[in-house]
């Protein structure tokens, strides 16, 4: 199964194995990773699973849908060009090794 790496705001690194068909958010919450809140449970309604995607991976991710785009305007920490909601990043074998940076807070 593909694995992805989360880098916490304090620099701590956590590598997480993903499960079949999981989103980056689901893999993170299943492993009890701090720093992803996911209050709406992955319904793209809350903007509390915000991540900054490592620049080298950005182009390989699925495009941002309108709903995600609107939610990203309301994230707790600043929206940057590499901001995404991790519930909208479905992990495929091509994303094995993906690096995501966590913001300081989600609310």
């Amino acid at each position, binding site marked *: 199964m593909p694995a992805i790496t989360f880098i916490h705001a304090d620099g701590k690194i956590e590598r997480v194995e993903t499960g079949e068909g999981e989103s980056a958010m689901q893999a993170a*919450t299943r492993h*009890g990773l701090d720093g992803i*809140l*996911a*209050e*709406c*449970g*992955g*319904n793209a*309604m*809350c*903007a509390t699973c915000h991540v900054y995607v490592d620049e080298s991976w950005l182009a390989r991710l699925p495009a941002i849908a309108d*709903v995600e785009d*609107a*939610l990203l*305007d*309301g*994230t707790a920490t600043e929206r940057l060009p590499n901001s995404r909601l991790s519930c909208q990043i479905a992990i495929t074998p091509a994303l094995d090794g993906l690096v995501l940076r966590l913001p300081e807070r989600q*609310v």
Partner: protein
Amino acid sequence: MTVPNSPVIGPSAVPHLDVDPFAMSFFADPYPTHEKLREAGPVVYLDKWNVYGVARYAEVHAVLNDPATFCSSRGVGLSDFKKETPWRPPSLILEADPPAHTRTRAVLSKVLSPTVMKQVRDRFAAAAEARVDALLDKRSFDAITDLAEAYPLSIFPDALGLKAEGREHLIPYASVVFNAFGPPNQLRQEAIERSAPHQAYVAEQCQRENLAPGGFGACIHARVDDGEITATEAPLLVRSLLSAGLDTTVNGIGAAVYCLARFPDQWQRLREDLSLARGAFEEAVRFESPVQTFFRTTTREVELSGAKIGEGEKVLMFLAAANRDPRRWDKPDSYDITRRTSGHVGFGSGIHMCVGQLVARLEGEVMLMALARRIAKIEITGEPKRRFNNTLRGLDSLPVTITPA
């Protein structure tokens, strides 16, 4: 759709249960029946009302997330809109399916977005502080009337842009709406019989000229100018906020205060770390599930976890039972403010998940934070009284005494 490893069984093999989940005795203590429903099977049949029921997390989540099969346009209560005339014009969002739902949902999502929450946050927090000031003056009070109701009433109607007169209709109107999702029992019949003045008030307030500029209501009407919705749709979308935006948060905040008063170790934990306030509210929504149930109607014959359900059948989802399903939750009957609650179905799930969830969380968070910062102890000083409703779970009164920090 199936949850894996279930053998296919015909309708006759679905366990029939003789329980009434809308009876007063059930409301008084639903938990033994919730367990019975969960343990009987993944899908059950309730002979009392001739409906299917799901009470385990996996099946509740599955039904919520398959709106094409389990539709909302035939009503999310027991009444099937295909066979009966609804008691009021159907909601354009709650009682609608895609693609119609997609358009109206987008409007309310924008009006209640994370960006808007950032704008109202300071105002909501200041009102919570003012409420705690008033409570500290009183020391002994009813945590439902003076806190769970008083706080949302001090902010939400203003945030909507409602006139000052007539607001006393708001909670009674919501009570009718949530009773009306139930079966034709006494609660529902009496609620509808007495609903005329509340309905008249709400219909009037939903009109554009009665909503103050800058409020949520005016923001909905502004979408008419963009062509996103029509002038006849806008008032009905405002009505959705009036129906579902107040009584739900009253019961949510009431649930949180009731939990924190009952479990002093959790109150202590919150006092030591105020950043847990939002989690404490969310866990109360899981633990008490202010919205207990909703129905869906099947659009075709479907197999759910091995059970065959025909077309046009009502399926009752026990959100509260799913939120305490031991298959999904560790120590489900414990209130733990540090629990990872993501995935609970207290706000629903899927396309109809509560559109006001961000408002509810904001109100809950700032209120609990204000309480925990300034109050050392909350003691229950009298027998809590339950308020009975076909859909909502909450208290009618909760006498408490507080000790200042």
